[in-house]
């Protein structure tokens, strides 16, 4: 006699908590065979607003932590993800219709991507920063500093876990906080991944994940004055030029859409940094 399973309620991930959408809206997630798998919360603009508040309030301590500490926190995500590898493979197979092998590869790639970006946390400032030999008695140093709160639209047609990780990880490595909209039709891995985040050492509010329609949410990001940067990686099917136009109102930093999963790169980290140059007088007397 088979045991009756206990299904999970998938909710949002905001400020370290798992609230339902304030709108009460959900949408059905079906397997590739058309079977009902779960209801996902359909985030509203108010959920988005709350996420930005959470991300903003987490920014100071996250960006103020030591780079070594951030690197360890990101590595911890990889560790916890590794421990729940089987669950993610199962979800990916079920919702994305991937083969078990392809799903396993996606999960492994996602884990390895965390390890890669974790290692950057205490190095990108050395590679992208510099001491400047100015003509005068001044100490002068340029360092990349976090841009702030970054909103990301995860890839919508690629592996749901790997796509999400590929846009979140560089933002975190750069000491920013993030509000992410995962792949709309396969959001379950994102919420399961939020559970990973909640049980690793990521402080509350550093990552916020709101499942919902990119077309509905993205304009609110683009016009939000407290969002510092917008990664449109997965917004290729949207009217993303309009989003970029809206973002110009506050000179928000915008990264245009990419095909598929963004490649791991240092440029993705530094895209969400600002070069800060500090001068100080230098004298023996």
């Amino acid at each position, binding site marked *: 006699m088979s045991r009756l399973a206990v299904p999970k309620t998938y909710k949002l991930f905001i400020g370290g908590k798992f609230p339902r959408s304030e709108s009460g809206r959900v949408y059905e997630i079906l397997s590739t065979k058309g079977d009902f798998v779960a209801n996902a919360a359909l985030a509203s603009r108010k959920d988005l607003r709350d996420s930005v508040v959470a991300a903003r309030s987490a920014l100071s301590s996250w960006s103020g932590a030591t780079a070594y500490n951030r690197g360890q926190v990101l590595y911890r995500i990889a560790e916890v993800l590794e421990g729940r590898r089987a669950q993610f493979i199962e979800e990916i197979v079920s919702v994305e219709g991937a083969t078990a092998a392809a799903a396993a590869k996606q999960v492994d790639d996602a884990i390895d991507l965390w390890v890669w970006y974790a290692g950057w946390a205490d190095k990108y400032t050395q590679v992208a920063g510099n001491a400047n030999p100015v003509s005068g*008695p001044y100490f002068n140093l340029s360092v990349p500093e976090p841009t702030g709160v970054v909103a990301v639209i995860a890839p919508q047609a690629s592996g749901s876990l790997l796509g999400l990780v590929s846009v979140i990880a560089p933002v975190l490595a750069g000491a920013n906080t993030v509000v992410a909209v995962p792949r709309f039709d396969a959001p379950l891995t994102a919420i399961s991944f939020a559970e990973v985040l909640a049980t690793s050492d990521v402080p509350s509010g550093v990552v916020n994940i709101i499942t919902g329609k990119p077309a509905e949410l993205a304009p609110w990001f683009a016009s939000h004055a407290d969002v510092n940067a917008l990664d449109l990686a997965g917004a290729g099917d949207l009217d993303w030029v309009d989003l970029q136009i809206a973002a110009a109102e506050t000179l928000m930093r915008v990264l245009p859409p990419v095909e598929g999963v963004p490649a791991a790169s240092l440029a993705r980290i530094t895209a969400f940094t600002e070069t800060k140059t500090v001068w100080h*007088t230098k004298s023996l007397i």
Partner: protein
Amino acid sequence: MTILSTDHAHSLVGTDFSEKNLKAVLNGLPGVDAVGLEARAADLGTRSIKTSSKAWAIDKIISLIDLTTLEGADTPGKVHSLAAKGMLPDPSDTATPRVAALCVYGDMVGHAVDALGTLHGDPDAGLISIAAVATAFPSGRSSRAIKLADTRDAVAAGADEIDMVIDRSAFLSGRLGLVFEEIQAVKQSCVRTDGTSAHLKVILETGELNTYDNVRMASWLAMLAGGDFIKTSTGKVAPAATLPVTLLMLEAVRDWHAQTGQKVGVKPAGGIRTSKDAIKYLVTVSETVGEEWLTPHLFRFGASSLLNDVLLQRQKLSTGHYSGPDYVTID
């Protein structure tokens, strides 16, 4: 009721001039950022002083010079010649102002008195005063008793001003109380039998103080102890007067005046050789403490070769063509 300079010091330090109390005041002074100070001095040095302003400046510089000879080989004849030069700097133009003072070693004071004759007197009245270096100048390395005797001798011989050196070793090793007491003691030794007193210039020897913070602290210490003037250098140590150091001392004098109402003089000495340089000092005085400081009892140049360069410039201004060193006297 006359306000004694010690009253000013008491108002800032309290009744007890202990080293601890002095340090509390001096350590509370704002710091100096060397780069900013030097940049400000350089900026003041870019003022362009032309035509009528230049003519005024040149005469003013002459009237602020402590014409100096401080050599082991000084002779009475040298002092007489110096006095002659100070009284009539340019025989070809008797409208040339006299210098403010002659600055000599203590044993030469009598010769200076003789040489100046009736022109010996208050430079603010157009006469020439006599400044004597004392206190085992330039090193200051002798006993307190000798330093005070040195001072008394010079005053007795007719010196109007005493240029003393501070004990740099004591200052640098943190014995500020000792430096303070010594300045006070020398100040006491400046008192004449008739109760009047020679003016005291306190030489900080900034070239040995290492930092601008020390210069500011030493300036305040000298003013607290009753110095009438603070002076940069003996001229025997490099670097002697520099524009940034003088600017800093002028700022100290300005702040002291704001707090006590008392005006203390400043004397950059050593290394100022051209009128171009000297004009930069006039600009610095005017824009830091104000033009009212450009008077012999508040500002002096300690210099020997400066005078001739200024005279050459003066001749150029009055004749319209460049002069040459053969047209000014060497002494």
